[in-house]
């Protein structure tokens, strides 16, 4: 059943899947605990402008998307800190502007017949070895950020007002969390696409939240759960010839429903034995 991973492009897909799962486990945890899910969606869609720019100028796609994602995250962090109540309006605005720029730039690129679907829904089967190096570098960068900034990240995420009183630079760390997440989002988009990226960032975290009692534990558990879903999704999509990104998401949803059902039964059982 694992012989599919002897095929060259499937090996790349597997490695990309694992790397991106670990990345999304970490940044997904940060995004969920900071209630930044809508911001993350905004960043993912804005980065389509960067994809358009990269195609127009002939730059690497990752580079163009990352530039747009980082710029969008800095702008959004600034707006979120300054205009807390109106931030949803601004996110919507940036979201649409980024996508529109992307569409127009691709229109203006002569003779380019873009496969829009691969950006919207991911193209894990088209991962090249150079992409793997990029993903690995990003993974290491995120790890360094989390390990060395853990105390401050935890303080800002849990209680930013108190962190401020204790001398933590809240604005800086809030922005860093978003910037680091935005680069991770660009990597995750390669696997599941910009539309489905949100569910890859939230479903494993939602499960991990129920069984972990620390932020670092949540990151590890959701990374592992995400890896499991991705591998199963890859295999199912290969054998049934389905779109990989969408299959991974549906596997995750089924996994989540199974988990919640088992947990519910377990809780009932536990209560029953105590009584």
């Amino acid at each position, binding site marked *: 059943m694992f012989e599919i991973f002897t095929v060259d492009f499937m090996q790349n897909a597997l490695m990309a899947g694992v790397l991106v799962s670990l990345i999304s486990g970490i940044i997904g945890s940060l995004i969920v605990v900071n209630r930044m899910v809508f911001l993350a969606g905004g960043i993912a869609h804005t980065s389509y402008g960067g994809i358009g720019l990269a195609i127009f100028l002939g730059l690497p796609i990752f580079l163009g998307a990352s530039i747009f994602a980082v710029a969008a995250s800095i702008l959004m962090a600034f707006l979120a800190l300054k205009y807390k109540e109106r931030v949803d309006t601004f996110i919507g605005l940036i979201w649409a502007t980024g996508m529109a720029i992307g569409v127009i730039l691709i229109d203006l690129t002569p003779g380019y017949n873009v496969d829009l679907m691969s950006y919207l829904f991911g193209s894990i089967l088209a991962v090249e070895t150079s992409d793997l190096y990029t993903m690995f570098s990003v993974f290491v960068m995120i790890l360094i950020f989390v390990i060395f900034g853990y105390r401050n990240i935890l303080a800002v995420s849990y209680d930013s007002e108190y962190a401020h009183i204790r001398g933590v630079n809240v604005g800086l760390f809030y922005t860093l969390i978003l910037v680091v997440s935005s680069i991770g989002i660009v990597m995750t988009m390669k696997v599941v696409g910009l539309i489905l990226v949100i569910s890859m960032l939230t479903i494993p975290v939602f499960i991990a*939240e129920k069984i972990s009692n620390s932020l670092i534990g949540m990151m590890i558990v959701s990374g592992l759960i995400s890896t499991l879903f991705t591998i199963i999704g890859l295999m199912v999509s290969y054998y049934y010839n389905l779109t990989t990104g969408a299959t991974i998401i549906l596997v995750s949803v089924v996994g989540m429903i199974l988990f919640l059902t088992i947990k519910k039964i377990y809780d009932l059982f536990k209560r029953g034995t105590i009584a």
Partner: protein
Amino acid sequence: MIKKILEIDDLTFSYDDNNVLENINLSLNEKDFLAIIGPNGGGKSTLLKLILGILETKNGKITINNQNPSLQLSNIGYVPQNTNINTSFPIKVIEVVLMGHISYKKPIFGYGKDEIACALGALAQVGMEKFANSKIGSLSGGQRQRVMIARALCNHPTLLLLDEPTASIDVDGQKQIYELLKELNKFITIVVVSHDISVTLNYANKVAYINKFLKLHNNINKFSTTPQNGHFCEVELMQMFRNKNV
């Protein structure tokens, strides 16, 4: 000699054109227990934020241990108003308490052994050491409030500020919190903002009524006769009730 902990001189503060606080004068000594009462929007939280240095004073002066509040942050413990936010956050009790240490002078990677020992000590002070490794969301409101007090005690403050510490806690829990504060008051100066006037009167030795202006009631356990200078607030009301009971 009695040591002065907090001194506020002629403080006036406004967010825009209208003064929120006007001509505030207040002096607290070692082991004072001040309760701040007053209507919503009367400036209670603003005063706390000024003491904490979150807001900057423009007119007037605040000194803590004879220094600017920003230099005395490590000597102030603070328990914020709403501790029921973020209860699904995956964080252990001990990690919440460890937030109380000032971070920028310590190593960024992990926590020091002395810091952990100190945090466990603070938890023991509030009777919550057994819960050190529990998830914060699994505690009751009163227990969580005690953890927040432990967090504030983490850096051994000389002044402890609490903003409505019993707002969302049942009656038993409220009593426990106030008994705990009474214990802590033996060596820490306490300022508590509370609507809970009856409880406050039993524990505080000073009560400040703030509604733009500050009216201080010293020796509140002695019955004062009639309201003076046109000032009449819950303190007088409670004293009248108390007098009837006697």
